[in-house]
C-alpha cells in the first residue's frame, strides 16, 4: 500500500502529538504511533497509557490500513527532510519504506491490533466552551496541585461543571486555588471529575488563547477534549475531591487592599533571607502599613515596609511566601485584596475586580 503526502502535512501533526510519547516506556509499543490510513487522510494516535492524543494529516493513499511506526524516528526523519518535499510511504508486511527525493528509510512496524488505544466509549456528559476560557481556568489554578502526595486525589485538578458555571479547583493541603466562570452550558449537566496532573500540564500547553470552541466529553473513565482536528483524552483520578467549599473562609473581620506589584516585589526581596525550606515570612499589619520580616537559620534578617489600605486592629501572622507569590502571579487586577481574621486562620487572596478567582493560604506558626 502506498501513501503520498507533503513533508509539512505530516511533520506538524506528528510534532503536536510527539510530546505524549515518553522517552522511557514500560511497553515497547508505546514508542510507536498508531496510524490509521484512509484514502484521503491519516489518523495518528500516541499514548503513554495516561493520556492519548489523536490528530490527522491529509494524504492520498491507495488503500486502507492500520499499523504502527516508531514515533521518535519518524519525527526525526520528517524534520530532517527538506521543506516542501514529497513523502512516499510504502507499507509491506512488517516493514514500512519511507522515500523522499533520493532518501530512503526502512522502518519496522508493529501490528495495530496490539496497540493499546482507548476505545471510544459513550460519554455521559458533553459541553463546549471557548479554548480561551478553559485555558484561563487552568492557568489560574494548576500551580496549587499537589505533587506525588499519598492523598492521590490531590495530585490533580478538580473540574466542576454545573448550574451554568465551570470551575477548577486545586489544592495541596496548604493552599487552595479556585477559579470559576459563568458560561452557556447544556441543560442539566452536573459533573465533577479530577484531571490528573500530567493531563492538566499537557492541556495548559495545548489550549490556545482563542475564541474557538473545545468540545469536552466526560465518561466514567476518561475525559476527551476535541480542538479542531486534534483530540486529547486522559484517564481520570479515581477518587473523591475534598469538600473545598468548607476551606474557603467566609467570616473575616479584617480586609487589606494592597498594590499587587508592590507587594509581590516586597515579598520577593524579603523571601531571599527566609528559611529556604519553610519560606516563612512574618506579616505585621497595622493601620495603613504592612511590615514584612524574615530570618533564616544563619540569623540573617530581612525587613520591608509598605503602605497598604487597612483600618483594622493590629495583626501578626506568618505565611509561606512561595504560596503568596504564586497566587499574586495569576491575579490580573493592579491591586489585591487579602481577607483575614486572626493569626491561626487562613487568608483569602482575591482579585479586587472579580470574585471568580479565590486563593486560600493557611498561616504558619513562626
Amino acid at each position, binding site marked *: 500500500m502506498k501513501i503520498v503526502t507533503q513533508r509539512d502535512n505530516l511533520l506538524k501533526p506528528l510534532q503536536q502529538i510527539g510530546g505524549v510519547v515518553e522517552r522511557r516506556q514500560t511497553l515497547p509499543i508505546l514508542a510507536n504511533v498508531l496510524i490509521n490510513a484512509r484514502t484521503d487522510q491519516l489518523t495518528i494516535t500516541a499514548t503513554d497509557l*495516561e493520556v492519548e492524543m489523536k490528530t490527522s494529516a491529509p494524504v492520498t493513499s491507495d488503500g486502507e490500513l492500520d499499523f504502527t511506526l516508531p514515533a521518535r524516528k519518524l519525527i526525526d526523519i520528517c524534520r530532517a527532510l527538506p521543506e516542501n518535499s514529497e513523502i512516499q510511504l510504502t507499507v509491506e508486511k512488517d516493514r514500512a519504506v519511507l522515500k523522499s527525493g533520493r532518501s530512503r528509510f526502512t522502518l519496522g512496524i508493529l501490528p495495530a491490533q496490539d496497540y493499546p488505544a482507548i476505545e471510544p466509549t459513550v460519554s455521559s456528559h458533553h459541553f463546549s466552551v471557548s479554548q480561551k476560557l478553559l485555558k484561563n481556568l487552568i492557568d489560574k489554578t494548576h500551580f496549587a496541585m499537589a505533587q506525588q502526595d499519598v492523598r492521590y486525589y490531590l495530585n490533580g485538578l478538580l473540574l466542576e461543571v454545573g448550574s451554568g458555571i465551570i470551575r477548577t479547583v486545586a489544592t495541596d493541603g496548604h493552599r487552595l486555588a479556585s477559579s470559576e466562570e459563568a458560561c452557556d452550558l447544556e441543560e442539566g449537566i452536573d459533573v465533577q471529575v479530577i484531571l490528573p496532573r500530567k493531563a492538566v500540564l499537557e492541556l495548559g500547553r495545548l489550549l490556545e488563547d482563542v475564541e474557538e470552541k473545545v468540545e469536552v466529553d466526560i465518561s466514567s473513565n476518561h475525559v476527551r477534549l476535541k480542538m479542531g482536528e486534534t483530540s486529547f483524552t486522559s*484517564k481520570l483520578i479515581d477518587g473523591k475531591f475534598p469538600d473545598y467549599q468548607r476551606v474557603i473562609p467566609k467570616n473575616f473581620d479584617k480586609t487589606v487592599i494592597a498594590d499587587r506589584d508592590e507587594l509581590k516585589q516586597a515579598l520577593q526581596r524579603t523571601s531571599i533571607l527566609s528559611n529556604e525550606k519553610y519560606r516563612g515570612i512574618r506579616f505585621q499589619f497595622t493601620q495603613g502599613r504592612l511590615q514584612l520580616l524574615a530570618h533564616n537559620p544563619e540569623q540573617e534578617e530581612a525587613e520591608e515596609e509598605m503602605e497598604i489600605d487597612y483600618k483594622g486592629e493590629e495583626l501578626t501572622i506568618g505565611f509561606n511566601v512561595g504560596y503568596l507569590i504564586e497566587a499574586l502571579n495569576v491575579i490580573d487586577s493592579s491591586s489585591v485584596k487579602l481577607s483575614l481574621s486572626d493569626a491561626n486562620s487562613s487568608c483569602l487572596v482575591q482579585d479586587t475586580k472579580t470574585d471568580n478567582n479565590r486563593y486560600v493560604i493557611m498561616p504558619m506558626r513562626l
Partner: protein
Amino acid sequence: MSAEKEAEAGKIPELYPWHQENWLRLRQSIAADRMPHALLLTGPDGLGKAQFGVAIAASMLCTSPADDGMACGQCKNCHLFRAGTHPDYRRIEPEEPGKAIRIDTIREFTAKEALTSQGGGYKVIIIEPADAMNSSAANSLLKTLEEPVARTLMVLITSKPVRLPATIRSRCQKIPFTVPDHKTATDWLAPQIGQQDATLLLRLASGSPLQALALTQGDALKVRSAVLDEFCKVLARKTDPVSVAARWNTLQLPQLLGWMSGWLIDLIRLKMVPATENLINRDQKERLQALALAIELKALYALLDKLLDATRTLGSQLNSHMLLEDLLLTSVTIKQRNARVDSRIV
C-alpha cells in the same frame, strides 16, 4: 519457561490439576462479588504459582470468560493481554533476576494506580517475586495495598512469605499452594516422561511436578550422578576438595545444595533404618548404603546443619565458591574418623 515468557509467546497459561481447588475458591469469591483486592500466592517453587497469577489476571480482564472462569482468548482484551500490551495489566518484577524491586518502581505504580482503568473494568497488577521488594519499596506499597481504588486486583507471588513484612502479609488474602498428592502429581507427570521413574523424579524435586519435569529436560540427571561420584570421591579422600569446589561453582547452586541435602537425609535414614525403602535417591541406594557405614550419625547431622545454613544464604552476596569449599572441606573431616572403610565406598 517463565510465566511471563509464555504470556509473551501469545499464550494465556493453563491451570495445572493441583490448581483447581484454589481456582474454584476464587471463582466463588468472584461470583459472590467478594473478590479481595489483594491476593498473596504462597507455596514452594515449581507449582506454577506464577501461571496461576497470570491466569487470574487474564480472566479478570477478559470481556467474556469461559464457563470455567478462564479467559476466552478471543476478545480484544485477551488479544492485548497476549500481545503483552494490555493497558490495565502491569507486572512488577526486579530489573534483573535476583535483584531487589526498588521503591521507584512501586512509587511509579502507586501514582498510576489512582487513575481510572482504560477499559472501564478491572486493573490487575502482579508483583513477583513479592519478597524481592526491599523494605522501603514494601512500605511504600502499604497505603495502596490497604485501600486501593475500586476494581483493582493486586496479586503478590512469593515462595518465601516470611521474608515479607507482616504489614504486607496481613493486608492480603492468602492463597496457599501445597505440593500435590502423589497420585495427582504422577498422573500429570507420567504421560510426559516416557519410561522414566516418576516417583524418583518427584522425590528429587521435593514433590514439585514442574521441577520434576524440568529434571528430565536437559542434563540435570547426568550432572547429578557425576556430582554424586565426586562427592563420594571427596569423602574417600581420592580427590582434591578445592578443585571439586571450583568445578561445582559453575553449576546451579540451589539445585546442587538441594541434591546434597537429599543425600545427607538419605544417609541419615539409612543410618537409622539400614533397610529402609523410603529414600529420596532410591536409584542410588547401594552406593548410599556403603557410604552410610563409613560415616558417624553425629557428623552427618553436623554437615546437614551446615548445608541448611548455606541454603539460607543463597541469593545473598556470599561468595559461592568459598561456601562450597567450606562444605567440602568439612565433608572430608567427617570422613576421617572412619578412614578404614575407604575401599568400600567407591
